[in-house]
């Protein structure tokens, strides 16, 4: 087992990658459907499925060319088996499983969030297990103790909105585009950090759970009480981002202390946030710990992380049978 093909179609990105155990990611491509769905104000599942089907083959062929390998050079296949949109997942899974069947290659389904969790492993200086991981994406916010590959303990998670979701909802409130995270971060650069002060939800409570819906509401109430001019928007973006980052940082600090571990991994779309990275650098430095994250293109949905996790599962002998399945809702806690 050396080279694994990764296929990701869980939502609105078609992604293909080839991971090589010795050389790392040989090539990867991501095709985003954001434009396709923009006019509908959200992802239309049927359109997403149809588009994945059209893009998957050209993207695969292009990736093989860029990786400078032939189909014969692949030793295994990995695909995202969930969580995500059922129809979209089914396109990638059916293609991947059939491709592997026809070539008699081992094949494995991968949990999308486990992919995110290990995306920082693709960096030149990766973390080593055990570590604490903060998973922050559009659908998840959780703190996980990673003892070794495949052995996870969930320390805490969001009781309502995910951090990315809170970014997106607040962005919509401020009239910004989807995805809202980068837009808020950009606007916050012009903001006055002292004008508004938003709550840091649940920091007084013990434990590692999060809650972001109250913060979103606080931002909305503050916004409604003003003229809603451009400067106000920037000030709210600034205060909102600060409150999210502070909260995340504090819980991470708590998790590092409680576990006695000295490596913190951040992963998922929100881990691309610059302020979050800065704050976590400062915080971990004080604890003589270290923070790790993926390069920006591997923070959001991609297939390199799927190929990597697939490789790890395949070398451990895991195989998806011919009666493969995909799962729209698949809690991390059920991952074995």
């Amino acid at each position, binding site marked *: 087992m050396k080279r694994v093909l990764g296929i990701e179609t869980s939502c609105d990105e078609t992604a293909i990658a080839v991971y090589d155990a010795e050389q790392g990611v040989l090539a990867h491509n991501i095709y985003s459907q954001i434009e396709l769905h923009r006019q*509908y104000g959200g992802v*239309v599942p*049927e*359109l997403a*499925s*149809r588009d994945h*089907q*059209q893009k*998957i*083959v*050209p993207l*695969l*062929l292009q990736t093989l060319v860029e990786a400078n390998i032939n*189909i014969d050079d692949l030793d295994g296949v990995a695909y995202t088996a969930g969580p995500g949109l059922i*129809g979209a997942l*089914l*396109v990638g*899974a*059916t*293609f*991947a*499983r*059939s*491709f*592997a*069947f*026809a*070539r*008699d290659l081992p094949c494995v389904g991968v949990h999308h969030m486990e992919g995110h969790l290990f995306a920082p492993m693709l960096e030149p200086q990766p973390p080593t297990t055990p570590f604490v991981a903060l998973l922050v994406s559009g659908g998840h916010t959780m703190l996980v103790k990673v003892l070794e590959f495949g052995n996870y303990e969930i320390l805490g998670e969001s009781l309502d909105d995910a951090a990315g979701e809170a970014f997106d909802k607040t962005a919509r409130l401020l009239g910004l585009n989807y995805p809202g995270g980068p837009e808020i971060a950009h606007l916050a650069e012009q903001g006055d950090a002292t004008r508004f002060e938003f709550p840091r939800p649940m920091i007084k409570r013990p434990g590692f759970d999060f809650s972001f819906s109250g913060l979103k509401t606080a931002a909305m109430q503050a916004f409604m009480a003003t003229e809603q001019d451009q400067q106000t928007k920037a000030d709210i973006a600034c205060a909102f981002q600060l409150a999210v980052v502070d909260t995340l940082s504090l819980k991470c600090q708590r998790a590092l202390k409680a576990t006695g571990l000295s490596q913190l991994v951040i992963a998922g779309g929100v881990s691309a946030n610059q302020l979050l990275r800065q704050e976590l650098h400062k915080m971990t430095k004080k604890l003589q710990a270290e923070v790790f994250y993926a390069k920006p293109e591997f923070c959001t949905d991609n297939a390199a992380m799927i190929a990597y996790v697939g490789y790890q599962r395949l070398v451990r002998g895991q195989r998806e049978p*011919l*009666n*493969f*399945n*995909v799962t729209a809702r698949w809690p991390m806690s059920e991952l074995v």
Partner: protein
Amino acid sequence: MKILAFDTATEACSVALLNDDKISECYEEIPRGHAQHILAMCQHVLDEQNCQAQDIDTIAYGAGPGSFTGLRIASSVAQGFAVALNLPVIAISSLQALAQAAYEQTQNASVLAAIDARMEEVYFSYYEFNTDKQCMQEVIVDQLCAPELAPLPDSEAKQYCAAGSGWHIATLQQRFRNCISQTIPDCYPRASSMLKIAEQKYTDGDYLTVDKIHSMYLRDKVTT
């Protein structure tokens, strides 16, 4: 000549292998879960003929119209095989496959094929047996229409076999009552019937390269 054919456009899920002159088939009617069954079925027909996937010369898939998810399962399998084995691919209309299955069952050379498209519409077409090609050929193009607007035949002289789930719809039956001699609403497209069509298409050079594999949804309005 080895052809692997499969169809998942309707409740029926089927795979067939033509191995020179021998045929193996797996056929099941299941409400869902076609994706979970199809590869095991492929394995089964290959094993039965002592063949390997690598021995296949071409694949034929049910391209639609039919259930959206079903169509994508068949075309994803087709894509997977075609890329993996560098094979030409034959897209077959599910209505043509249905008409062929109806012909094989009834020997009636004229078939009105109709698949229930939900939302008070049907996927509909006419097919006739062609003696040169030795299989059913379309008389009009496959279409999506309301049962009460399905195109009537030019004359009432000919008597048709009405095949497919669309004929469970009373309006459709009523509209065609004068030109139907036989109704088989529980007839589905099936892979073994696709083999004849596939052979003919292959001979005619009517096949696709992998980048051209697609589904014929017919219904393109999927948002409100």
